[in-house]
């Protein structure tokens, strides 16, 4: 590149100014024409499909195809909504949706209310508080197996695996709070309160799932939305905690684990597909929400992205909080999470969209009509009602509306997310 001797040399154009202006105008016009043409091409399939949803069963596959429907059949939309492919809501599926929601509601409430800001080490001594809360965590796990038994007489395997998973999450939460030298009376109180919240949430969401029906559109929408929200939310919590540890704390084996994590991103999904399916089948999780939630409570890419983000954030605030005597968890909760809000929102959106658009995993693990997500339902539905393209297109439109709406409101975060992905390589 030649050295620029005059930084402000822009007016120095070799051509006369009028022709330059004209050619620039022409160039701009050309750019607009191109942009509009491409935009139209990209959106044409959606527009055609949207118009197709208002056509009759015959009109939609007739030759030659028409652009606008002869008469606007608005009733196609409620027709799909009321279609029932059969299949009652199974207790197993509904309970798994309720229980996973309840578990993470419990964890969220417990972790958020377990610490009381100022007073530390007062009240109930650690020697009493810690064992009691650990015991309580195990009891909660046991209670969840009892709940499964009570609701539908679950298989032994499912009871054990659910109980152990719940216990592990509860133990981790107690462990995290115990590192903050808390007021143990408050911890126990928060635990009981969170348990009540968790139970109510479990019951409410279980009932909602049952009310939404079995092989019906409302239920598929419910499944997809609930699974996407839970998965994105849980992933956010655990990814950000891990990212905080990797970015800020020092511990033996940190580099080893981090490098292992980076290496594991190279493993193609096809390799883990079959053994994961076998494992999930052996754990009794097929056709339950656990199959999609528990294996993905963390996401390697999410941890990596947030770690990179936190490394770039100055530490002054955290150090001030540390000097004031705040514990690591308090710093994470009160300083780091608010600071990382843009990155967290980006990750939430990416994960939500990832689950909403996922096809292979739900196809493998959720095969009863009451547990289908929209994508699976759409593909099976198309096979069953082959001729009724208008209904399939209505389904496709409803499926597309949620991600598109989210995108138009948060497009900045989407675009940041894709650019973040650029760091991945």
């Amino acid at each position, binding site marked *: 590149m030649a050295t620029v001797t005059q930084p402000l040399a822009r007016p120095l154009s070799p051509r006369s100014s009028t022709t330059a202006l004209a050619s620039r105008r022409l160039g701009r016009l050309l750019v607009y024409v191109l942009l509009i043409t491409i935009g139209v091409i990209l959106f044409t399939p959606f527009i055609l499909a949207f118009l197709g949803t208002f056509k009759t069963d015959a009109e939609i596959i007739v030759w030659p195809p028409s652009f606008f429907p002869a008469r606007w059949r608005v009733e196609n939309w409620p027709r799909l909504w009321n279609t029932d492919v059969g299949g009652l809501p199974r207790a197993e599926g509904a309970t798994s949706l309720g229980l996973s929601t309840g578990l993470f509601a419990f964890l969220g409430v417990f972790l958020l209310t377990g610490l009381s800001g100022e007073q530390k080490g007062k009240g109930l001594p650690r020697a009493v508080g810690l064992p009691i809360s650990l015991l309580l965590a195990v009891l909660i796990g046991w209670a969840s197996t009892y709940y499964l038994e009570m609701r539908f007489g679950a298989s032994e395997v499912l009871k054990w695996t659910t109980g152990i998973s719940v216990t592990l999450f509860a133990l981790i939460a107690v462990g995290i709070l115990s590192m903050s030298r808390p007021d143990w009376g408050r911890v126990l109180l928060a635990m009981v309160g969170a348990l009540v919240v968790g139970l109510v949430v479990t019951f409410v969401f279980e009932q909602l799932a049952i009310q939404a029906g079995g092989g019906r559109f409302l239920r598929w929408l419910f499944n997809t939305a609930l699974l996407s929200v839970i998965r994105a939310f849980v992933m956010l919590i655990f990814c950000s905690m891990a990212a905080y540890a990797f970015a800020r704390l020092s511990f033996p084996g940190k580099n080893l684990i981090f490098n292992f994590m980076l290496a594991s991103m190279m493993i193609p999904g096809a390799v883990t597909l079959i053994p994961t399916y076998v494992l999930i089948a052996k754990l009794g999780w097929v056709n339950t929400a656990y199959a999609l939630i528990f294996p993905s409570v963390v996401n390697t890419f999410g941890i990596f992205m947030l770690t990179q983000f936190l490394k770039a954030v100055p530490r002054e605030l955290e150090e001030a909080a540390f000097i004031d005597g705040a514990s*690591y968890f308090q710093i994470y909760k009160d300083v780091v999470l608010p600071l990382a809000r843009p990155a967290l929102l980006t990750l939430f959106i990416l994960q939500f969209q990832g689950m909403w658009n996922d096809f292979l995993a739900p196809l493998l693990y959720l095969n009863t009509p009451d547990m289908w997500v929209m994508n699976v339902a759409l*593909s099976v539905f198309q096979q069953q009602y082959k001729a009724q393209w208008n209904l399939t297109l209505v389904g496709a439109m409803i499926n597309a509306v949620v991600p598109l709406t989210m995108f138009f409101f948060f497009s900045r975060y989407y675009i940041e997310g894709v650019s973040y992905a650029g760091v991945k390589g």
Partner: protein
Amino acid sequence: MATGTPPRRGFFNNPRVRDEALTAYLFISPYLLVTLVFTVGVVLFAIYISFNQFNLYTWPPEWVGLDNYVKALALKGQFIHSLVNVIWYVIIVVPTQTALALALATLINVKVRGSQIFRTVFYAPSVTSSVVITMIFWWLYLKTGYLNFFLTQLWSVFGAHWQAVEWLNAPKGLFQLIAIALGGNIPSSLSYLRGPSVTWMAIMFQNIFTTAPTFMIMFLAALQEVPPSLYEAAAIDGANNWQQFWKISVPMLRPVILLVIVLGTIGTWQVFDQVKILTSGGPLDTTLVPVYLIYSEAIGTNGPPTMGYASAMAFLLAVIIFIFTFVQRRVIERGTEQY
């Protein structure tokens, strides 16, 4: 928190160091748990079952040594056939979508009023699920669908007649069609020489349609990092837009181009959704791809499930992807050394 240098000596005696480490382990414990079970455990198990005759209903697995790998690598076997198909896919889709994404990004990067709106509009189709797009394209690809209609109209402009094609059931290969057009034919025994089938190319088109905008955003983010002074300096030196693109944008974007190519390659090697929904590998296995083959063997769509065989194919696929991306990286990085 690492305030100053934490004393390393006496890990268990120093409560501050110990607390920090314990907190950290607790914070990463969900990750460790999930990884141990669903990554390490699962990969080890996959290695084990790839040497076994195994499915969900026969326990214990039956040791068969390298049989699964031998079966997968048989020259006339389905796995090799699926690899040939997917290689067509990779070598057509990856360069096209990369070039298209770069072109779109360059176009949007031109500073005109409203370019933000176009950025949003262009990217929007990429946020919808591949299943939705596939459904819509399936309908567009029907024999009475809009694609045939569009081509009929286009042909009639030139006074020709377009014979409607059943896009998703057209097994004839590209080279075969060219040969037929020239008056010859390629016999069906030379299946590898017939090229990608029409159906396969229809799926490629759909995939390019959805992935190009995603990569466009990555290019756009990188383009906006290029210092404007470079373009200004070049403009003063009399470089036109075309020269500026090749001499400034492309060299500055090399790392992102590499990334887009690698990500695109990894993605295209594992294409599944479209094949599962649209063709199930047909017609005449011309869209059979490795991941679909692995899926159908593991599930048992044709006959009893053979998970060991499927695992062996998955490993071979992983090795191929790894080698392919590694070589790609080396080749492109060697190209960069000149700059």
